[in-house]
């Protein structure tokens, strides 16, 4: 081999080749991982919600598996009220120029397509009706989140997240004050305001973004003709008692919430919902932290109001009927692979559905994340919803409303450091809904002409997701 090598030609090129090969071999032998080598050659590597990164000077990957999803350290940080617990959490220790504000938005190109949409058979006329696949493509914007979260004082946390939709509509996504570590115990923290439920599988930190994949169908599914305004992923208004062990491996939350699905005002009239979560994590050594938990949400919605001349007076309900969502959720790590299972059993009272019996359904999903390194993640999810009992079985096919949703994605963080973040995001999502309007998609919002017919909706998303 050496003799052949010495007899060859092009010595200078071979010299470079051999040196390069040896350097590569040396890199491997030295035990430096690819990400490490890349770090040495490039400049920046990490990303996180930047307001906290700027405050604490931690790399964003300290708190996130891949932002915005939290890792166990980030979960503990959040549970402590966005505090490190280093006696420097109060804003009095911050430079006067520090403002706890981060901005996030996602300029994008996307394609949305939905089958079986009812349209006029001849466009521009009232020649009803034909079913057609409607497709749209184009460059677009997501909304803008103004993420303001932090501490007002040691152990007094606040959250304020105004949002701006692409059409200019403003909203208040989050607004709360939280008193942390009451009695110097991590087991007692009280939050008042509008906030996300303590969902182990957080929809506010969802890592898939397309119109079909950027939500958990299970969180928002309502049977056909069911008017219950509730989404498990929606921020709610109320008070929450939450506690956790020092490492946040064990966590619980109890919340009492106004029955408005997070809408301001007390339109439901002295009606309250209750939410409960409990989870526990195991130290699985080099595999990571394995968490499993249970949750329950029990609520009620008004069905009969006080009236004036037969006109209901909003906010003064006479009769309310219940609904519930209960289930299991988990977060399991196997080295670079993360699996997120979720199961739900749900029921809405027949008075809420206008049927003859309660609507009952089951839902479940499995989301998988494979982190090649902190800057590259492959993503996938399968989700299914199955009706168990229709509210009106005489007129409704048994599978009416069933959903199957598939999503795959890739997320590449162009750079990562502790001031801002930029991710390139590619995603494709496909949803099959039986006889109902897709929960998302191109938003035409029409069920198919024939009950029990499958409607397919697909989303393709190519985006730049940035936060600063």
């Amino acid at each position, binding site marked *: 081999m050496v003799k052949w090598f010495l007899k060859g030609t092009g010595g200078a090129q071979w*010299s470079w080749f051999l040196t390069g090969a040896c350097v590569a071999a040396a890199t491997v032998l030295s035990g430096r991982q690819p990400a490490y080598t890349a770090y040495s050659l490039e400049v920046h590597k990490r990303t996180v919600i930047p307001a906290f990164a700027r405050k604490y*000077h931690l790399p964003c990957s300290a708190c996130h598996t891949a932002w915005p999803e939290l890792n166990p350290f980030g979960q503990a940080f959040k549970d402590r009220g966005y505090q490190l617990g280093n006696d420097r959490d109060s804003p009095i220790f911050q430079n006067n120029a520090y403002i706890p504000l981060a901005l996030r938005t996602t300029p994008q190109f996307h394609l949305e397509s939905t089958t079986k949409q009812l349209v006029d058979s001849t466009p521009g006329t009232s020649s009803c009706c034909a079913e057609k696949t409607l497709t749209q493509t184009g460059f677009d914007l997501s909304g803008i989140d103004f993420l303001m979260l932090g501490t007002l004082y040691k152990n007094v946390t606040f959250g304020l997240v105004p949002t701006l939709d692409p059409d200019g509509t403003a909203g208040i996504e989050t607004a709360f004050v939280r008193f942390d570590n009451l009695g110097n115990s991590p087991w007692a923290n009280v939050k008042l305001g509008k906030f996300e439920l303590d969902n182990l599988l957080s929809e506010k930190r969802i890592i898939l973004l397309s119109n079909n994949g950027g939500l958990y169908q299970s969180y928002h599914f309502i049977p056909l003709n069911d008017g219950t305004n509730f989404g498990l992923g929606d921020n709610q208004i109320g008070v929450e008692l939450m506690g956790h062990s020092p490492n946040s491996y064990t966590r619980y939350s109890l919340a009492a919430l106004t029955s408005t699905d997070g809408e301001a005002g007390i339109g439901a009239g002295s009606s309250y919902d209750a939410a409960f979560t409990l989870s526990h994590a195991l130290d699985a050594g080099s595999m990571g932290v394995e968490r499993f938990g249970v949750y329950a949400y029990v609520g009620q919605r008004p069905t009969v109001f006080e009236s004036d001349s037969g006109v209901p007076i909003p906010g003064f309900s006479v009769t309310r009927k219940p609904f519930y969502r209960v289930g299991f959720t988990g977060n399991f790590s196997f080295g670079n692979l993360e699996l997120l299972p979720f199961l739900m059993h749900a029921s809405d009272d027949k008075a809420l559905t206008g049927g003859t019996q309660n609507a009952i359904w089951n839902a479940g999903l499995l989301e998988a994340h494979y982190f090649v390194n902190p800057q590259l993640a492959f993503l996938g999810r399968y989700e299914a919803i199955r009706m168990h009992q229709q509210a009106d079985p005489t007129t409704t096919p048994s599978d009416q409303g069933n959903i199957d949703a598939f999503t795959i994605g890739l997320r590449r963080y162009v750079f990562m450091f502790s001031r801002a973040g930029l991710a390139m995001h590619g995603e494709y999502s496909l949803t099959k809904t039986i006889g109902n309007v897709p929960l998302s998609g191109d938003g035409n919002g029409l069920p198919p002409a024939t009950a029990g017919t499958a409607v397919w909706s697909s989303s393709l998303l190519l985006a730049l997701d940035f936060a600063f």
Partner: protein
Amino acid sequence: MKSNTRLVALLSGLGVLLCAAGANSARAQTSHIGNLTGHAAPGSKLYQRYCVGCHGADGDGAGENAPWIDPKPRDFTLAVFKCRSTPTGTLPTDEDVFNAMTRGFVTTNMPQWLPLTRQNRADLVAYIKSFSPKWKTLKPGTPITIPAEPRLTIESILHGRQLYQKMECWKCHGPKGHADGPSAATLTDNKDLPIRPYDFESGSRFMCGVTNQDLYKIFMTGLDGTPMPSFADNLEPAGAWDLVHFLRTLQPFDTPEAALWKAWLASHAGELKPIGPGGGGGGGGGGGR
């Protein structure tokens, strides 16, 4: 000529490989925490995720966030650590580094890494050790022996107060422990960076632990890399415990030491000599045990 060029290339390549082998031996560092064995290879991935922003890719404390952090991140290439169970000037045990990482450092940007699994933290310790050759050539010191804490008495506190004066703790920590001693403003660490003494009145946790044993350990091992020396050569164990008891009275907590001290002060405050230049630090007949 061409053959010579290739030979040079081959030799240079082999040289790189040999260097890599050397580097590999450093990277093959392990740690031992109880029954856990940490390995540097997985530790390096964790280091990139959690630590590199402050401590830097080369472990020299020069991460991209370092300019904005005060106090500065630890320089692992020096293998000098504040919180140890071992005598001053020696390497800490793996468990010392593990505990420091788990506990974090209050009033600094170093958080508690308690949410990471024990194996993850052990792997990180192994990787941190790969930054300095000292871990290859030197052994960690032998942990100091901490005798059982004696019964708390007012005599113990008063003797501790005398030691606080005699050992000149007040020069940095101040007569009342407010970190306002005459030397406080001039202190620097081993990198000539300004450093502040601990302010007992702040109520912050001690950097190296929260128990009385931890406090004992702090001044009997010293905080290497800082002006806080070891008093192991100057203090007998009994005296060290007396000092622990007195130091606890300087903190704004409802500790047994503070309760006993307040009760005694209620009727004996006038007997105390002030701490500080020319001060006696004693009084109340509490000069001995």
